[in-house]
Structure formats: structure tokens, C-alpha cells
């Protein structure tokens, strides 16, 4: 938690506008209600950059990261599969397709700023239901079939998104950029969109931490210990899907957060989901925040797509962890 706050403090102080740190903080402190009356020595533009652009962006980064970390922990918990994450289940592709469709026909703001998030959310949910439906056999969802169904649906929808990208010559960059994930041009409205989901999602998934621990022993074992396995799986998958869809609809496709973060936490604190769930939310926030800070400053004023960056950092890191873990198991 401390690390999260520290990261936010550092991140907000860095930016392409090149303000001195003292000025940034003077602006922020001025926002506190009991300081509002004091005289200002900066322009309205400066204030807008810090508050409207930078602060909101940092909050969105933290919230999106928390949602993805939580969703990853939830998916891995109930699916007992290290490969499960918001993306392997096709949720992200499902959300992408709705957004890509809107962008292709120029309908992004048909019903205001909420249009893309809302449609992405609806198609994301529709996708997970399609995946559930494919995976459901004789009233039960088998873990292998579910992940397989996710991969199939993801491949199918991914092809559709690519098709739409190829169909649109003029707006090709916008869809492409969205599928690569970015936090640029987000504002406080997006913060208020994500915040309630993150705030409700954390305790909701944390409430299932102990059942998820028991699921580690196997579904039968968990059932014998009094876990309503089918219900637990369904509820946690639904909440995780919701969190993913909200995150994707605001930030585009940011890969590897939901996969890497819970793994990393598990390697540090062990397998207990009562620790893994809240720490995944916090660390997910830190991870995306740093990735985004890097994305907007590394090649400033040009921005690196955030999803590209998280994958560039995440994939090798994941490979390294996997290797080290194997070596550790051999020695132990």
C-alpha cells in the first residue's frame, strides 16, 4: 500500500510538459478544500494539465491495474489454472470487438462518453457467456474445456477485430491503438466509471478467498469440505469478467497484468488467497501505474501503447519467474 502511494507520488511528478516538481505539488495541494482560497501563481492550463490530465490518468492506471490483478487472481483461483487470465478466457477480445465496431462506424460518442465502455462491457459479458455455454457439459463446467473454449472464442473474435481493422483505411490507427491499450485521453469521468467496480470487486472476490484456497485441493475435496463449487466458480468468474470488461472498456487491451501479478504475489507470499487477492489488486495498480509512467515518458512526447509495454515487460519477467521456480523446486 505504501509502495502504491509512493509510486503515485513519483509518477505524478514526471511528465512530458516538464513542470518542476514543486509546481505540480503546489497545484495538487491547492485542490484540497481548505487551501482553495489562497492565491495562485500558475495558469489555468497548468492546473488542467496536472489535475485533469495527469492525476486522473494516474488514478485510472491504478484502478485499471487493480481490476486486472483482481480478475486474474479470481480466474486463476476458480479455474486452478496458471494460464487463466482475463485474456485467455476471451473476455478481452469480446470487449475489443464491441469497441472496434463502434470505432469503425464512427459511433464512439453516439450516446456520450460512456458509449464505448458500455458496449465493450456488454460484448465482453456476452463473450464469457458464450464461453461458459461452450464449456458447459451435463450441467458442469470442466476446467480444461473452459480454457479451451476461451481460446477458441478468442481466436474467432480476434480475427473479427483484425477484419474490422483491415476494413477501415481511414481510422485504422484508432482501432489498432485501442487494441494495444492506452491510458491517454482519459479523464475524471473514466475514473468514476472504474472506481465503483474496483471498490466493490475487491471485497467481493476477497470474500471467496478461503473457498478458492480449498479449490486448490481439487473440486471434489472442496465440495467435501462444504464449498458450493459450482456456485463459487460462477460468481467469481462473473465478478472477474465484470472487472475485466470495465478495465478493457476504459483502457483498451492491456495484457499480462492479470497473468503476471497474481503469480508474482503467490511466489512472494505463498498460495493463500486471503493474501493473494488484496495484494494482487494493490500490486496490479502499481504495475500498471509504472508501466503507464514509462509509456508516456520513455519516448516523450511520443507514447508507447501501454498494452505493448506491459507485454514487453511482463512476458520475459513471467518466463524468468517460471524458470527460477522450476530450479527452486529441483533444489528443494
Amino acid at each position, binding site marked *: 500500500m505504501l509502495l502504491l502511494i509512493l509510486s503515485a507520488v513519483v509518477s505524478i511528478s514526471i511528465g512530458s510538459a516538464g513542470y518542476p516538481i514543486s509546481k505540480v505539488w503546489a497545484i495538487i495541494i491547492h485542490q484540497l478544500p481548505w487551501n482553495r482560497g489562497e492565491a495562485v501563481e500558475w495558469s489555468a492550463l497548468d492546473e488542467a494539465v496536472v489535475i485533469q490530465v495527469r492525476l486522473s490518468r494516474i488514478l485510472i492506471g491504478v484502478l485499471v491495474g487493480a481490476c486486472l490483478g483482481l480478475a486474474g487472481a479470481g480466474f486463476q483461483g476458480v479455474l486452478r489454472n496458471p494460464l487463466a487470465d482475463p485474456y485467455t478466457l476471451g473476455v478481452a477480445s469480446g470487449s475489443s470487438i464491441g469497441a472496434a465496431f463502434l470505432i469503425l462506424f464512427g459511433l464512439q460518442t453516439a450516446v456520450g462518453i460512456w458509449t464505448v465502455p458500455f458496449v465493450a462491457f456488454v460484448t465482453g459479458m456476452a463473450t464469457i457467456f458464450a464461453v461458459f455455454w461452450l464449456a458447459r457439459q451435463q450441467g458442469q463446467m470442466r476446467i480444461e474445456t473452459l480454457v479451451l473454449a476461451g481460446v477458441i472464442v478468442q481466436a474467432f473474435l480476434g480475427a473479427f477485430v483484425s477484419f474490422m481493422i483491415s476494413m477501415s483505411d481511414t481510422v485504422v490507427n484508432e482501432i489498432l491503438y485501442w487494441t494495444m491499450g492506452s491510458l491517454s485521453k482519459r479523464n475524471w469521468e473514466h475514473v468514476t466509471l472504474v472506481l465503483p467496480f474496483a471498490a466493490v470487486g475487491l471485497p467481493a472476490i476477497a*470474500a471467496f478467498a*478461503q473457498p478458492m*484456497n*480449498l479449490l*486448490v*485441493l*481439487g473440486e*471434489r*475435496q472442496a*465440495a*467435501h*469440505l*462444504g*464449498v*458450493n463449487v459450482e456456485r463459487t466458480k460462477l460468481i467469481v468468474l462473473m465478478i472477474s469478467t465484470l472487472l475485466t470488461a470495465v478495465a478493457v472498456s476504459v483502457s483498451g487491451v492491456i495484457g499480462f497484468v492479470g497473468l503476471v501479478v497474481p503469480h508474482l504475489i*503467490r511466489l512472494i507470499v*505463498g*498460495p*493463500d488467497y*486471503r493474501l493473494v487477492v488484496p495484494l494482487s489488486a494493490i500490486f496490479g495498480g502499481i504495475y500498471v501505474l509504472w508501466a503507464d509512467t514509462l509509456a508516456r515518458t520513455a519516448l516523450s512526447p511520443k507514447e508507447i501503447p501501454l498494452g505493448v509495454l506491459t507485454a514487453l515487460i511482463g512476458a520475459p519477467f513471467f518466463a524468468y519467474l517460471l524458470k527460477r521456480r522450476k530450479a527452486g*523446486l529441483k533444489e*528443494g
Partner: protein
Amino acid sequence: MIDVRNAVKQIGGSLVLDGVSFSLAEGGMYGIIGPNGAGKSTLLSLLSGVETAGAGAVVLRGKSVRSYKRKDLARWIAVLQQEGLPMTAFTVREVVGMGRFPHQNWLGSEEKDAGGLIEHALATLGLMELAERRLSELSGGERQRVALAKVMVQEPELILLDEPTTYLDIGHQLQLLDAVRDWQKRKQLTVVAVLHDLNLAAQYCDRLLVLARGKLEAEGTPADVLTEETICRVYGTHPIVLRHPDSNAPQVLLRPRGAPANL
């Protein structure tokens, strides 16, 4: 009282249980024996409520097993599975502690302190030295002992054992069954065990149920049930049945084909 009334179960189109009925008084140790595919494990799954009968009913203490909530069932029914526990990163003490789950509220706390219970179970099964080890570092026999300790911590009144000794050597088989029987006698528990080994079943169980092709073929004391005639009818082999010199329990000697029938 455990009542199974005309239970029928189909799995993937084949009839696994074909109208099985019996009732068991609480406080005994019961064995279910029978050849492969007889429906023994399926019957146990019906008793534990993780599967439901296609027709007929399973009635536990006067109520259909289906009318219980999962957690309510787990407060007094525990299951020890054949395959034991998976190799996880949880420690022995953590896994044994998970046995308390049905007694905890949703915040994970319970009224009484279960610490002593967990220590006692660890000590009973000789797991004290292993308590802080991860499950992934233990042998199969050790993990099965952890599974039994977890079942003990669950404080059940009915214990269902599904071939718990399958992957154990004879020393560990006896150790496990001795621990179960001592516990059963001390607390007057009910144990229903699917057992592969007829000789162990004869020595540990008060009564045996013989299942074959989804039907109940015989029921009674080991001496009633383990006769050459019944074994031949159910397993299709002609054994020699003797008496154990210590306990007088029937013991089965197998006779390969081609061996001389009488010396």
C-alpha cells in the same frame, strides 16, 4: 441412520447403480466391496451428496441428502478420497486447518479455538515434524496421512472412505486403517469405507456390503458374506477362505487358474 432407497445412477448412458437399497445404523464400521465398475465409488458419491441419484433417494438422519446445504453436510460428513491430496504449496498445518472450513463463518472465524484440535490431529498421525513442510515435498503416504488429519479436524460423525489405502504400502495401509478404527471406536462414529482388499475389509469392518454390476449382491457380517460361493459369484474366481488365527475373521487366499484344486 443412513437410508439408501432404490438408488439408480446413470453416468454417460451406462447404468452404474441399478436400484440399490440398504440402511445402516450409526456407530458402526461398514465396508463396501465388489469388483471394478460395480458402482462402489458412485454409491459413496451419492452418500456424500456430491452427486445425486437419478432415481430413488438417499436419506441421512431422516432428510434427503439433497435438502442439505453443502456446508451443513460438511459439518458432519467427511470424505477421504482414494487419490489423496495434490502437491500444493500449502503447508501441512495449513491444509489440516482447512478441515475447519465448514465450521467457520464467511469471515473465516469460528467460536471455538481449533488450534488444539489441529495439534492433536497432527500428533495422532505422527505429522508433527512435517507440520511446516509444503505438501509438494511429501510422499504419497504422507499426503494421505495429511488428508486423514484434515478429515479428523473436520470433526465429522460420518466418515466416507473411498479406497483410501490404494496407493499405500501394507505398513501404511494398516497404520491408516488402525487410526480410523481407533477414532471410530473412541467417538462412536459411523464409517463407510469402499475397500479393495477383502482381507483388510474382513478384519476392520463390522458389516460388509457386496456390490456387483450396480446391484447389492450380499450384506452381512464378514463371516456371512466372505464365503467361497459368494466371492465366486461376484468376482468370478474360486478362492480359498480360511480363518485368521488371531481374530477368526475370514481371510481369502487367491488360487491362480491351473493350480491344483486340492492337495
